[in-house]
């Protein structure tokens, strides 16, 4: 078991990335009961936004200095696309049967992929993304943190703290909770619920961009299809943690990340299961975990019972 600490640290980095994306699903769902299946593409677009900034900056600017601008550029791109999607794709369908926005989301997802594929220079194949590279930090003898993992390990908790504080303590955050719990009554209090919905999409977009930069740093490349599996995993994390709950989304992400990493390390050591371990099976184990949790705790780890929404 000497790999255990390393497995936990690597899983934590992957999980924090999933968690950042899961926040976007869970916030939008919490407020409008819509699964924004195009959210994975919001992540992807943010990655290309960040890459564009890097390419604009002179090559002499070190990555560490470029990173804040890349985050800003990525966030602006993701937020713009997410709020435009809300305004023009989802808002007109607010009174429609649930299937309509769902199909719209899938259509939007394909459209966004194809727009990047067709119009972003050289996006028909993967584009390389800058990395810090270099030696991993040695924490103790058997725990190493890759330099490019460090970003998400710092950014995710900071984002989470800021969001938690905003939702719990600010006037707008309270309006957001009120809208999630009872939208009509929130309007009677003077809350412009349309604006709160836009805000939920915008926060999700900003977090998606942070996740996209984290993913680019880790993988050293981004591509127009990256949003699909990332989105699916993060949606799994949001459901796992209890959809509608922001802390649940992060917890679900971390649990999923660790489980996925552990599955590649340990399952092949179980006698008779050699063929079921390794990287190729990690997605399978992630979804097995989801199924097991939903069987035991349908509302997710931190979810509240639906009957509560009276």
């Amino acid at each position, binding site marked *: 078991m000497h790999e255990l600490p390393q497995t936990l640290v690597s899983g934590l980095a992957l999980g924090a990335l999933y968690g950042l994306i899961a926040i976007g699903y869970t916030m939008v769902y919490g407020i409008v009961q819509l699964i924004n299946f195009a959210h994975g593409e919001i992540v992807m677009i943010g990655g290309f936004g960040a890459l564009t900034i890097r390419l604009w900056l002179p090559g002499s600017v070190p990555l560490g200095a470029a990173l804040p601008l890349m985050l800003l550029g990525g966030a602006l791109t993701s937020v713009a696309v997410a709020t435009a999607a809300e305004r023009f794709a989802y808002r007109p369908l607010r009174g429609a049967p649930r299937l309509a926005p769902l199909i719209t989301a899938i259509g939007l997802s394909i459209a966004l992929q194809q727009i990047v594929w067709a119009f972003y220079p050289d996006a028909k194949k993967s584009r390389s993304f800058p990395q810090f590279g270099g030696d991993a930090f040695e924490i103790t003898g058997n725990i190493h943190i890759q330099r490019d993992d460090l970003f998400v390990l710092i950014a995710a908790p900071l984002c989470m703290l800021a969001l938690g504080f905003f939702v719990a303590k600010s006037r707008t955050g309270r309006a957001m909770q009120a809208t999630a719990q009872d939208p009509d009554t929130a309007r*009677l209090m*003077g*809350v*412009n619920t349309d604006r709160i919905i836009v805000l939920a999409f915008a926060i999700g977009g900003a977090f998606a961009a942070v996740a996209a930069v984290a993913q680019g740093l880790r993988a050293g490349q981004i591509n127009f299809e990256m949003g699909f599996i990332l989105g699916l995993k993060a949606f799994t994390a949001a459901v796992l943690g209890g959809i509608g709950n922001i802390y649940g989304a992060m917890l679900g992400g971390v649990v999923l990340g660790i489980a996925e990493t552990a599955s590649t390390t340990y399952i092949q050591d179980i006698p008779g299961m050699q063929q079921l371990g390794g990287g190729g099976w990690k997605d399978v184990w992630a979804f097995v975990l989801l199924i097991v949790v939903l069987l035991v705790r349908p509302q997710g780890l931190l979810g509240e019972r639906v009957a509560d929404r009276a």
Partner: protein
Amino acid sequence: MTGTALLEVKDLRIAYGKIEAVKGISFTVHTGQVVTLIGTNGAGKTTTLRTLSGLLTPLAGTIHFDGRPITGIPAHRIVALGLAHSPEGRHIFPRLTIAENLQLGAFLRKDTHGITQDIQRAYDLFPILGERAKQAAGTLSGGEQQMLAMGRALMSRPKLLMLDEPSMGLSPIMMQKIMTTIAELKANGTTILLVEQNAQAALTLADQGHVMETGTIALSGTGAELLHNESVRKAYLGED
């Protein structure tokens, strides 16, 4: 006591899809008055209040509040004009604390000091709310939730307070307590539009009453007149 017309409703018609729930009603609320709408379930009372506060859009007719037309103005802007609505079924925010619920009632106000004072006033009016200020509102009993809903509606310092079925589902003691509070608010000069199924209690308090039947106003009069009207006594006060 009673002053100028604060709320004027004229020929108001409201429909859900093709079903017309309110078929042309007119009534007026003067400053300082308590006006009540009574009637059976489905008469259109709640629909009327939801339209006045902007949650529903009327089919036809006009609503003037404080001298200006408010038809078509979104709900979140109507409360800013001084029209507060405590909805049927209380609708407190269950996972927010009692104090946070009250603060949301003052969402559009900027005077922090005044808000703090008014929260204290709500606690004076309903001491149980003060004792449980930090508790999630969903843990309150039905009657306590009603107190919170009323306290929350008062937090916007409304010119007109609309109360929809404040006594619904409450024990007789709690119902008495709520009605006493409404009487106190009236004595302090609060203008109230009250929808109630407990016609006896509502008419006793009201300056003006309107009896709604399937989307129309069947009968109007002062509270005392309606209380002594034979058909009202038969239909709504359980006498024969």
